[in-house]
Structures are given as C-alpha cells and as structure tokens.
C-alpha cells in the first residue's frame, strides 16, 4: 500500500510546537519528507536552536502523528543543521498566529511593530526571553511588554577561517 504524501503533510501541519502557538510546519522547521516503497517515512527537521529543550518532544509528536497514517510502516526523524533555520522560514499564517499571541516577527523589509497596537516605537529590553528563540521588548506607545522572534542571520559565522 502506498502512502499519501499529502496525508503526511496534513498530519505534520497539525503538530504544534511545544513552546509556540503555531505548528512545526508554520514555524518552518520541517525541511523534507521522504517515503519509500515499504512505507518507511523519513522526516527531516531543523532545530531553531541547538539547545532547544523541545527537540525530543517535537520528535515524539512527529512519530505519533505520522505512524497512525495508513500504509506507514516506520517513522524516522532526523535533525539537519544546514541550511540553518531563521525567522524568514516562518510562514505567513504562522506570523499572524504569533502576532495574535503577542509575539512579533521582524523582517528586513518592514519595520518592527508592537503586536498589540502596531506602533513602531519599541525598545529591546533583553535579547533573552522565555524560550531560546524569543527576545523581550517594550512598546513605548501602549506600554505593553511583548516578545520578538530572534533573528539569527546577522550572527552567522564569518568566513575568516575558511
């Protein structure tokens, strides 16, 4: 019996990230899904941060979601570090869900806005927030604290060592 890839993608789209109010597909960490003739499914995911304590939970949730699909004989989950995840991988739907939760996703093409009042008058209070992938901000306009998904592109390794 062949496995329907669409069914697997739908199952993954229903797997919530344990620390964020969005799915792992919306977060953009699902990189690839391979299915072989024997019904063995290989899901490749990329961590947001190496030390993310949710990795084992995400792995388990993927296994549970995919293994119940008709025709699937086994599920293998592997973590890929390259290309690395960054906030530009978050899908539009995920960005909107995060905003509704009080978490802003910065972008190089638009100014950072407070998720509550859309004011650009914000200040970073700390680079480190309640999870590794979030920072703490404050809105000077509506006086609410809020969180921002941490951009990592600027932290990429320089090429000086070749």
């Amino acid at each position, binding site marked *: 019996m062949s496995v329907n890839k669409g069914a697997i993608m739908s199952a993954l789209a229903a797997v919530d990230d344990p620390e964020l109010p969005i799915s792992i597909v919306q977060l953009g960490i699902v990189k690839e899904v391979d299915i072989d003739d024997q019904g063995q499914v290989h899901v490749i995911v990329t*961590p947001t*941060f*190496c*030390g*993310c*304590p949710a990795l*084992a939970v995400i792995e388990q949730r993927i296994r549970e979601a995919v293994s119940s699909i008709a025709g699937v004989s086994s599920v293998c989950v592997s973590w*890929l*570090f*390259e*290309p*690395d995840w960054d906030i530009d991988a978050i899908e539009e739907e995920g960005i909107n869900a995060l905003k509704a939760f009080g978490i802003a996703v910065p972008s190089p093409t638009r100014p950072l806005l407070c998720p509550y009042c859309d004011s650009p008058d914000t200040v970073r*209070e*700390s*680079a*480190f*927030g*309640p999870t*590794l992938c979030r920072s*703490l901000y404050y809105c000077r306009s509506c006086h609410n604290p809020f969180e921002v998904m*941490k951009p*990592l592109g*600027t*932290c*990429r*390794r*320089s090429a*000086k*060592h*070749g």
Partner: protein
Amino acid sequence: MAGCPESLMLAWADDEYVVGQQLITLTGMYGPDLEEAIAIGSIGQDHLGHALHLYRLVCPDELTVNRLIYERETTAYRSCHLCDIWRPDDWAFIVVRQLLYDLADYERACWAGRFDDPWPGLTGMMARETRLHIEHWSEWCRLLAQDNYGHARLVEAFNITWPLAFDFFVAPEQVPDSWSACQDAWVEVVQAIFGAAGVPIPEGTPTAHIASGRSGRHLPELAHLLSEAHAYHLSRPAWQWE
C-alpha cells in the same frame, strides 16, 4: 578535509557541559535583575545543548552518553582551566570569564567548520548562538567599565582569569597545527574588547604552572561541580540526560 579529531570534540563537549552547568546553578537565584536571570538560563541552556550534540557525536548510543557525563572520574574530563574556574558570587568574574570563554569558543567553532565530518552545519549553528552570548557579555563589560568601582572589579576579574584562559588553546591530541590560529585570533579580539573597557592586557602568553585541563589536571572547582552532578545521577540512576 578529514573528520574532526574525537579528542577535540570531547574537550569541547566537556567545556560546554561545565560552563552550562555552572550557569544553570545560578538560574532563579542570581542576576542583577529578572531579565538577567532569564538570560543566564538561556545561555546556560545553549551551552548544555552544544555539549549534548557533541557528546552524541563521540558516543554510539544514549546510554554511553549518560555514562560519559556522569560516570567518569574528574581526571577523565578534558575541560580547560578557563571553564573549571568558577566564582558564583562575583558578577564581574562571571562577565569576564563568560566573555573570554565565548570569544574562544567562537574561534573554535569557526576553525572546526573546516571539517565536514561528522557534523554538517552544527559548528555554524553553534557559532551563531555563541555570537548572541558575546554580544550580551560585551554589553555587560561596557556597563561595568562605566564607573571606577565597576572598572576595578573588571580589572580584578580579568587578572584572575587571563592566566588561566590560555589553557583553552592547549591542543588536544591529534589536532592539526592550524589550531594555533584560534589563539592568535582570540588574543586580537580580547585586546579590542577589553582594551575598549580600559582593562590593561599583559604582554605575551602567561606561563602555565600546572598541567593542562586537556590532560585531566583540573582546578578544585571542577570536582565540586561534578560531585553534585554525580550525586544526582546516583539518586536517579534510571534517568537519561537529554
């Protein structure tokens, strides 16, 4: 280029494990403010995450990872003296030690990027997380340097840590000669950051008076940290570290 020598990965994992555990012991009980307590927790979590990935690369299975972490004698650890030393009640020390270590750790991750095997992309991910730490500790260094008292504390902490810091660069076995470039790059960036904070940096490389942590000779602080971890493991032998 061939794979990264296992000796380097183990020394690296031990450095990250020790620093991560030290920081985690401060979570919730220390920090100039709540945001700092959160930052310490996050940074410690990064270090422990790096350690776990590295241990997994040198171990065939999870059980062996657990045994490697909890069931070794202190002399079997390969952490360097810069990581061993620990003064949890001295904020200036924590800032200086973390900054010196993260700068060195960053150079190591960049250098190790030349090995494709066994970690496609992992060194790059670790490096970018370390950059966040560097940004954080550099900011604290600048803050402390702003008044005479803070500056004096910074200088005192630097003078304690600087002679031990070079133990980081003692090459583990089978590490190619190009490794020494890391130390040169590190000295340059340390001079720039601490120089800007008005901390005088001694000329030349300090002479080591005891054998390196890379060969299993450690400062007393490490035995203290490990005894707590080992006691915990004995009380919960079935628990796996993940």
